[in-house]
């Protein structure tokens, strides 16, 4: 009897190992490293006893699109990929991503209504869902409270309109002490578009109508900030991270940037700082802000769509860990962010959460990189004085019209 039990246990064990050998393997490509969510969550999902093993590959930011496109074209695509949100439509519109609308409708973990409108819009193409937002971020106005007080400004009423912002920058600007009024990024890269597009959107424009009166006013406002020396000329070539560095060191009194700066600012800034919503064109105007970060998507030619979606469901179920463990904001309005105990950071988070309600996706459009380039060119041509703001934006509009007409 004893032997028989032993034998059956051995049989069960060997059956188990057979089942294990037949595990489904799904491949996930993402740029997250061991300190970021995707790699950890993928590992946890792989370790679960669900018959699915994950083969995780870390890819570089610059290679995401070209690597995965090449892989897709040659039938070597991964099952799941994390893609930057403005590039989502490039894949979705060409049928490279799996339509997950019905899976989401049947899912308890991924509920479309729980997501912020901006991130959800970025995974949507033709009213169908082609992915799940992975995390999100946006931009708002950081300001140095100490410098506000020194310049006689009230830190409890930060600039609310564009005119207020320019006036505050002028009051705070102090070249003798190497302090610029404001820092932001007008770089000729996606970062420039990321920072400028919200200004156009707040004033009634958008990526498909960029030469509106409001957008011209926005660009003129940027030009004033640069021409009057209220922002460093290096704004033209500096990214958001480096621009915020000058704020942290006390060389700029305000900066427009996102929540990814919070931890560094807590460490570096030797002054009191706060965050305010992005100023609007005039009182009562509509709000808008940029929407950043990545989306999850399943490639259309996957052999294991169910298993892949199961992985995304697991990731979504862990969204409440994104902030406390990895410092990223979940793209969902139904998750309460627990207080960190660091007062300025917690206050800032509430502002970013409010700003997220107004965050708008870039596009979505399959030719986004070209549209973005037209906007970057306009910003740079106007700010370097080679064209007037009107002409530069008209030229951008003409390029964008040609792209949209294709």
């Amino acid at each position: 009897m004893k032997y028989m039990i032993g034998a059956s246990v051995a049989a069960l064990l060997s059956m188990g190992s057979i089942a294990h050998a037949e595990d489904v393997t799904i491949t996930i490509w993402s740029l997250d490293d061991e300190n970021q969510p995707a790699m950890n969550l993928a590992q946890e999902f792989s370790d679960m006893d669900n018959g699915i093993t994950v083969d995780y590959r870390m890819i570089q930011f610059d290679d995401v699109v070209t690597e995965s496109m090449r892989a897709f074209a040659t039938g070597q695509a991964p099952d799941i990929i994390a893609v930057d949100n403005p590039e989502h439509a490039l894949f979705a519109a060409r049928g490279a991503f799996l339509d997950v609308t019905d899976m989401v409708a049947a899912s308890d973990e991924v509920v479309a209504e729980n997501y912020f409108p901006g991130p959800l819009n970025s995974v949507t193409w033709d009213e169908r869902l082609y992915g799940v937002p992975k995390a999100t971020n946006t931009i708002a106005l950081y300001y140095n409270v100490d410098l506000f007080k020194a310049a006689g400004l009230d830190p409890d009423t930060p600039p609310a309109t564009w005119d207020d912002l320019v006036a505050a920058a002028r009051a705070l600007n102090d070249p003798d002490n190497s302090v610029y009024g404001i820092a932001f990024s007008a770089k000729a890269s996606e970062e420039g578009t990321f920072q400028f597009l919200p200004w156009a959107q707040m004033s009634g424009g958008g990526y498909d109508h960029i030469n509106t009166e409001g957008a011209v006013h926005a660009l003129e406002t940027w030009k004033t900030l640069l021409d009057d020396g209220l922002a460093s000329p290096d704004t033209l070539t500096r990214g958001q991270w480096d621009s915020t560095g000058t704020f942290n060191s006390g060389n700029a009194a305000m900066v427009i940037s996102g929540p990814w700066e919070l931890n560094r600012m807590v460490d570096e800034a030797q002054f009191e700082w706060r965050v305010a919503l992005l100023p609007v064109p005039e009182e009562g105007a509509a709000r808008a802000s940029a929407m950043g970060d990545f989306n999850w998507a399943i490639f259309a030619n996957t052999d294991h769509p169910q298993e892949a979606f199961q992985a995304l469901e697991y990731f979504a179920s862990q969204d409440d860990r994104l902030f406390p463990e990895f410092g990223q904001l979940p793209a969902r309005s139904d998750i309460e962010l627990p207080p960190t105990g660091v007062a300025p950071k917690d206050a800032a988070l509430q502002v970013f959460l409010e700003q997220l309600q107004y965050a708008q996706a870039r596009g979505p459009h399959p030719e986004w990189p070209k549209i973005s380039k037209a906007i970057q060119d306009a910003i740079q041509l106007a700010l370097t004085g080679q064209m007037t703001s009107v002409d530069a934006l008209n030229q951008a509009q003409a390029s964008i019209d040609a792209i949209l007409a294709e």
Partner: protein
Amino acid sequence: MKRIRSSIIDGVGFDLVLVGIPLVFLILFSGLPLVYNVLMSFQEVDLFSLGEVFRPFVGLKNYRALFAQPEFWPIMWNTVIFVFCSIGGQFIVGFGLAVFFNTGFRGSTFIRGLFLVSWVMPGLVVGATWNWILAGDFGVLNYLLSSIGVISENIFWRSDINYSLWAVIITNIWLGTAFNMILLSVGLAGIPKDLYEAASLDGATAFQKFWTITVPMMRSTTGAVISLGLIFTLQQFDLFAAITGGGPANSSNVAQYWAWELSFRQYDFARGATISTIMIAVVMVASVFYVRSTRHEVRG
């Protein structure tokens, strides 16, 4: 069979194998990509046809579209300025240093070796270092210039459209000077000393000796250095990526950086390949000069 083997071990066959191995290597790893690149410039390429070789043929459409872009001629002109000024600067400074170290003072060979440090550093590191030197608000260069009274206001080397290209040129001259100096030093060491002795006996001044002996004797080395300089300068990509990113408003954009931007930023691979094809043609002309001047060297 035996004859073939003996020919390979000791005969014409051995020579053929020696020539064949690098030839196959070159064709595989340089020739095919080049041909593929040229082919792409005549095709319609999008992200979804990246894995294919035969795509729709569009004739000269990519070329026409490229020439019609408003930034085409400014960028080509930037490329010409970048190449000429970089090579000129590298050569003149490199030649000066080579002549200087050739005088053979104590420790000259050691210091000459130290100069190579700039050449072995990766372009991105050099770019990052020069970023701090060239920074507008807190740059070392601005500090130096204003303390000796050359400038009264900070120059925004990277962000001012009048200076951005020069920021990269200055860095590139610094980067390439050491390489020029080493090659030119070798050339200088090859000039027979008796020529100078004879000239001295005839009463030639140092300046005369330089113009009538050094310069003519260095002709083939100079040709090689300049041709190589052209090739290296046209390949220079890291400095643009690290310092200006081609901006602002394309004021420091050059062909090689633009090709990368088109291909990997806007995913317009066909136009990127078109620029590369134009550059291949230019580099080939330079290569002909290089091969000719080195051949001359062997005979001389």
